[in-house]
């Protein structure tokens, strides 16, 4: 059973419909448990007080932002190299999810930073890299929108995704480089305090909850993209007959 087993759209749709309820249920349960642990069970930090709870949504959001881009890049590579017919749809479907989490990472990072360092925004290495990642997502989605021909848009977006993927480590490195040169007066640590076991569980569960949510949402969006592709094909066929 190779990757191309799932290339058949009908087979994919059937599989997606079967997995979806499980992913949704898992996401819901994990989310409830994670939120409870984050908001109630986890202790307040000695230094940061209750604001440390924001870490339980900020860090998993940042993780998802990066995970989604990796997913997008791998799917794009599969689309370009092996020409798997669903791979470009998977990439396209995952982009808004990644962009959403990137946005959340930025906003929660800002809300976490204000009580701690007094400003709504700090140009620390992590937030700056996430901001640039946000631009990469926006550019990717804009390119899909801008090119009218669906197949050409898919290929162009795939090229852009891979170019972006190669650049992400370079950008991350250069931003870290930049940050160490312009080290601000106080050492900014957006990772929060040393991870205590009571801190670890909410973090991991929230991270898993986000991942399950991603799977469920991805399947919905992929089915939608598949339908849109079929619609376009039908419209094209109609116009030429």
């Amino acid at each position, binding site marked *: 059973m190779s990757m191309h087993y799932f290339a058949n759209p009908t087979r994919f749709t059937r599989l997606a419909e079967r997995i979806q309820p499980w992913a949704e249920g898992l996401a819901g349960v994990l989310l409830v448990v994670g939120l409870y642990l984050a908001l109630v069970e986890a202790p307040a930090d000695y230094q940061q007080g209750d604001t440390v709870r924001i870490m339980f949504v900020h860090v998993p959001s940042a993780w998802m932002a990066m995970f989604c881009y990796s997913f997008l890049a791998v799917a794009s590579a599969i689309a370009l190299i092996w020409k798997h017919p669903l791979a470009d749809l998977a990439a396209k479907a995952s982009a808004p999810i990644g962009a959403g989490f990137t946005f959340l990472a930025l906003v929660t990072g800002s809300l976490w930073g204000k009580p701690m360092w007094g400003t709504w925004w700090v140009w620390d290495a992590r937030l700056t890299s996430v901001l640039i990642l946000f631009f990469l997502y926006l*550019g990717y989605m804009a*390119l899909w929108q801008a*090119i009218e021909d669906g197949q050409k848009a898919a*290929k162009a977006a795939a*090229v*852009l995704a891979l170019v*972006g993927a190669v*650049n992400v480590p*370079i950008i991350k490195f250069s931003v870290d480089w930049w940050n160490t*040169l312009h080290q601000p007066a106080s050492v900014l640590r957006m990772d929060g305090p040393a991870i205590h076991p009571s801190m670890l569980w909410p973090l991991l569960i929230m991270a898993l909850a986000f991942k399950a949510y991603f799977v469920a949402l991805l399947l919905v969006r992929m089915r939608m993209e598949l339908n849109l592709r079929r619609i376009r094909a039908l419209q094209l066929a109609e116009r030429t007959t």
Partner: protein
Amino acid sequence: MKPFMAVIARDLHLAVRQGGATFLALVFFLLTVTLFPLGIGPEPAILARIAPGVLWVAALLAAMLSLDRLFQADFEDGSLEQLTLSGLPLGAIVLAKTIAHWLTTGLPLLLAAPILAVLLNMDSEGFAALLLTMLIGTPALSLIGAIGAALTLTVRRGGVLLSLLVLPLYIPVLIFGVSAIDAAVHGLNAKPHVLLLTALTLAAIPLCPWAAAAAVKLSLE
């Protein structure tokens, strides 16, 4: 080699004939740099502090604005397609056109930079680093920009989209370029920054034309 040089020569010839592009890039460079003292105030110490960054950002923007003439005109009148029929691989064609683009955009910017650095009261220790980083970095701007130009070829009024695609990719070049000049100004070792910048450009030379060619191919299909 002959056909490769022929493409460069052709593009240079066209650029000279049309004349405007280099002039416009230089004027834009000058204007943008002028905006900063007007916006921030003419205090020499502050200008000197921001000079490396302003020069690099302005040069970067000027380079980016000139990218659309890399492929657009040739694509529209069919000459791009003709070039592919010449037997030269598309990647080589792209590289040749990029070199011509740099000669007509990056090189003039590089030559104008020291003059503008004087306007911004940049410390004299930074001039050598400024020229060196621009010499190494502006080709990277043309190379990376070619990918964006190729991807947005079929997009109507794709200039803004081009900026969105290309500017994030320019950031490492910007960071290494500016930090090299800053290091030189403060008497620190600029070598690591310059080496990183060089690595970027060297990596861009084989990789960018390849990616841009893949994108151009899409538009020609």
